[in-house]
């Protein structure tokens, strides 16, 4: 496994360089996992991409670097300490950098020579490939795929010049055949998952780190047969999605915390009017504007309790790109079956990172299928044609129809209402309706997906976590268990509200201690577990500086914890 960082200022072109490098590595048969770390500005500042690749599957980032491509001096100073002893540094000769492993590469001049001063990134890619002795011909194929005709040749030249400029220095395992694998980032995984779930309407107001979803849908709207609406604000976005779903088009809106705040009232509308709705909240550190381009898991409690009053909703926090795909697909099935809002809680880390996954893993959706409702809907229609949209049923689920059908008319209502959707103030109807809606959540609890289990079947310490920290925590405890012959187990929650508790109860019974690892300050999951199960789960490691935790940090935290215990 190799870990390379490309750092520079916004506007330096590191995004493009990283994109081409990742594509090329994949084409060369390597699994690639990459993350983006960037500031909330269009130019300047310090941004970087980390690209981890190897012949084995790779699903997480790591601190230690095999290589550092420093576009400016700042990038060198900020990251040089992470470099392994024999790691390389590539930089422009003009930079005032001093280091034993320096490879001075005059990529700007070489790019000019190659015929395009903006092809510096291709020079760098050539150099990297050469360092590992990778196949130039195959790399060229990938370039042909990426670059449009007018700039292709210059970039091919640049690749070659870079390749020639350095010597092979490292050995790389042979690449695999990855032609059945896709490389996808979180925004794409969530978006394509939604399309698989038959989403037909997406409305949003731009907001980092959720804008990439809007951009994706906008790019494919014509071929994917969907309507994409950029709304005037997030309140409009969510009400549009509710309107669309109420008329039978599966609809979604996406945003980050600030925009989600503005959607809160409408979530209650979906709740009481029982209109299905899918909302993606791609988290960033708050409160308020916070750190717009960074990551955090601090909206968990907020989204669970969003909106006045009480009504069923579901919150899912997918753990990696594969889960993002399946869970956003499933979100639509859940939303429509239960007629509830479903919140997909992702974060900047997941959204902007990418990984390589066998296509079959994506196509195989059977673990995420929603049970068919075993209920015969007898639709009761009054003399005017209005049907019992909110009919009392054992499951709490009433027959769901959409506008436009000749056989019945439909009334939807944000006020408390009768079975026919007419405003009421009856205490009796109110009681019935509250209970009817609540029954849906009880039913949903029966088909929750239990957390992913990793580790020792009889652990001393049971770790719990949710969402995007999955791969890093998994990596950490696998390492720790390997060292110490087992001791740790880990439950990673994807379905997080309502909270599935079977595995939690089973393994917590076996463990001497249950601790959480979370990317927030309050240990919110631990609190939910205390509330739901009375298991005295306390945070073991919390991180809230906007940077995603890696396995090494988690190992360190768990080692400290152990010392504290002993």
């Amino acid at each position, binding site marked *: 496994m190799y870990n390379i960082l490309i750092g520079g200022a916004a506007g330096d072109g590191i995004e493009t360089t990283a994109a081409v490098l990742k594509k090329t590595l994949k084409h060369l048969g390597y699994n690639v996992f990459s993350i983006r770390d960037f500031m909330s500005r269009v130019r300047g500042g310090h941004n970087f991409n980390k690209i981890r690749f190897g012949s084995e599957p790779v699903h997480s980032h790591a601190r230690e670097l095999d290589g550092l491509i420093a576009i400016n001096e700042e990038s060198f100073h900020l990251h040089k300490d992470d470099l392994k002893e024999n790691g390389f540094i590539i930089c422009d000769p003009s930079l005032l950098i001093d280091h034993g492993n320096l490879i001075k590469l005059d990529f700007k001049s070489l790019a000019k020579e190659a015929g395009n001063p903006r092809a510096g990134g291709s020079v760098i890619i050539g150099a990297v490939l050469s360092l590992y002795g990778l196949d130039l011909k195959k790399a060229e194929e990938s370039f042909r795929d990426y670059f449009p005709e007018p700039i292709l040749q210059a970039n091919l030249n640049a690749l070659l010049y870079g390749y020639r400029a350095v010597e092979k220095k490292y050995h790389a395992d042979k690449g695999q055949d990855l032609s059945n694998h896709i490389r996808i980032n979180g925004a794409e995984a969530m978006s394509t998952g939604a399309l*698989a779930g*038959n989403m037909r309407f997406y409305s949003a107001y731009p907001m980092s780190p959720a804008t990439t979803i809007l951009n994706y849908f906008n790019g494919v709207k014509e071929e994917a047969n969907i309507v994409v609406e950029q709304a005037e604000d997030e309140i409009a976005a969510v*009400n549009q999605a509710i*309107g669309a779903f109420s008329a039978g088009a599966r609809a979604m809106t996406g945003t980050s915390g600030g925009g989600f705040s503005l959607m809160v009232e409408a979530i209650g509308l979906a709740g009481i009017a029982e209109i299905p709705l899918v909302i993606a909240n791609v988290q960033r550190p708050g409160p308020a504007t916070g750190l717009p381009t960074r990551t955090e898991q601090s909206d968990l409690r907020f989204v669970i309790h969003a909106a006045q009053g009480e009504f069923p909703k579901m919150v899912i926090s997918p753990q990696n790109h594969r889960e993002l795909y399946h869970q956003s697909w499933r979100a639509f099935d859940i939303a429509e079956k239960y007629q509830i809002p479903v919140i997909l809680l992702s974060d900047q880390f997941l959204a902007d990172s990418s990984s390589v996954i066998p296509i079959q893993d994506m*196509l195989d959706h059977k673990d995420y299928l929603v049970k068919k409702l075993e209920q015969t809907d007898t639709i009761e229609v009054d003399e005017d044609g209005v049907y019992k949209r909110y009919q009392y049923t054992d499951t709490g689920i009433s027959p769901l129809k959409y506008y436009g059908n000749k056989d019945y008319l439909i009334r939807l209502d944000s006020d408390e209402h009768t079975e026919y959707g007419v405003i009421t103030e009856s205490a009796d109807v109110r009681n019935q309706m509250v209970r009817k809606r609540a029954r849906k959540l009880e039913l949903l609890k029966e088909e929750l997906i239990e957390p992913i289990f990793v580790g020792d079947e009889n652990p001393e310490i049971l770790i719990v976590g949710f969402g995007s920290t999955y791969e890093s925590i998994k990596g950490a405890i696998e390492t720790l268990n390997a060292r110490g012959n087992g001791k740790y187990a880990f439950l990673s929650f994807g379905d997080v509200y309502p909270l599935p508790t079977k595995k939690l109860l089973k393994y917590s019974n076996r463990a001497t201690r249950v601790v959480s690892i979370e990317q927030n300050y309050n240990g919110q999951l631990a609190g939910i577990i205390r509330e739901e199960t009375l298991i005295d789960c306390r945070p073991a490691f919390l991180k809230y500086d906007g940077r995603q935790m890696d396995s090494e940090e988690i190992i360190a935290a768990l080692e400290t914890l152990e010392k504290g215990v002993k």
Partner: protein
Amino acid sequence: MFNQKYTSTQTQWCPGCGNFSILAAIVDVMNEMNIPKNEVLFMGGIGQAAKLNQFIPGNGFSGLHGRILPAALGVHAANPELKIIINTGDGDSYGEGGNHLIHTIRRNPDIAHFVHNNQIYGLTTGQPSPTTDVTDGIDGAMNSSIPLSPLNLALACGATFVARGFTGDREQLKEIMKAAIDHKGYALVDILQPCVTFNKVNTFKWYKDRVKPVDHSHNVQDKEAAIKLAGTWGEEIPTGILYQVERPVYTQRRPLLSRGVIPSREEITSKEIEDRLKLFI
């Protein structure tokens, strides 16, 4: 088949309220226009005016205060075959919902919107609304501010149909409503509606003494003239269709909809799912 005639149920309004005339006009108009009930959706926000859809047995959607325009856009995008008719109050659409008004106008979706402008917050019992007449003095009402001219606002945003009605002139109101429903695009009808309980200034008589249907000679495509008429508010208040032009409607500007596809009827296939993923190989 159920009863296809439009009717109204008992309402929750005060005796004498102008809303009764609007409801009656709508029921008449709908019957006269003969659009099948299942093809019509009455939508409203929250308020006395917005309750109107509760009093017509038919397809109905009572959304949130101020937020019915985006919900309506969503419905329209999902199924443009539905004829959407919105009733809201002045507080709902010009106060809470002001931003949606601006931007819905810009999209020009094929929706008819009747604002019952009683120049007051009725359901919350009598606070001034954005259209409440106040003087330039200190706090005439709860909060004096320059009153909003909703029709001028609409014209400034590029509205394609702008009209003013009055509950006291049922025939004219019906004509306006029909034209609004027939109009290809977003049609804003601001209806002067006396609130007998809370608005003691702009009473039925007050309006009656001032309203004056626009001249037949008025060219509804003359924007300058329309702006003048929309801004005329005093001894005389012009009523009727002030402005109407054709511009591309929402469905013509969105690729999928411009092809006539009804999104709510689309189903994705396994092949499409697989093909999309393959793009990431």
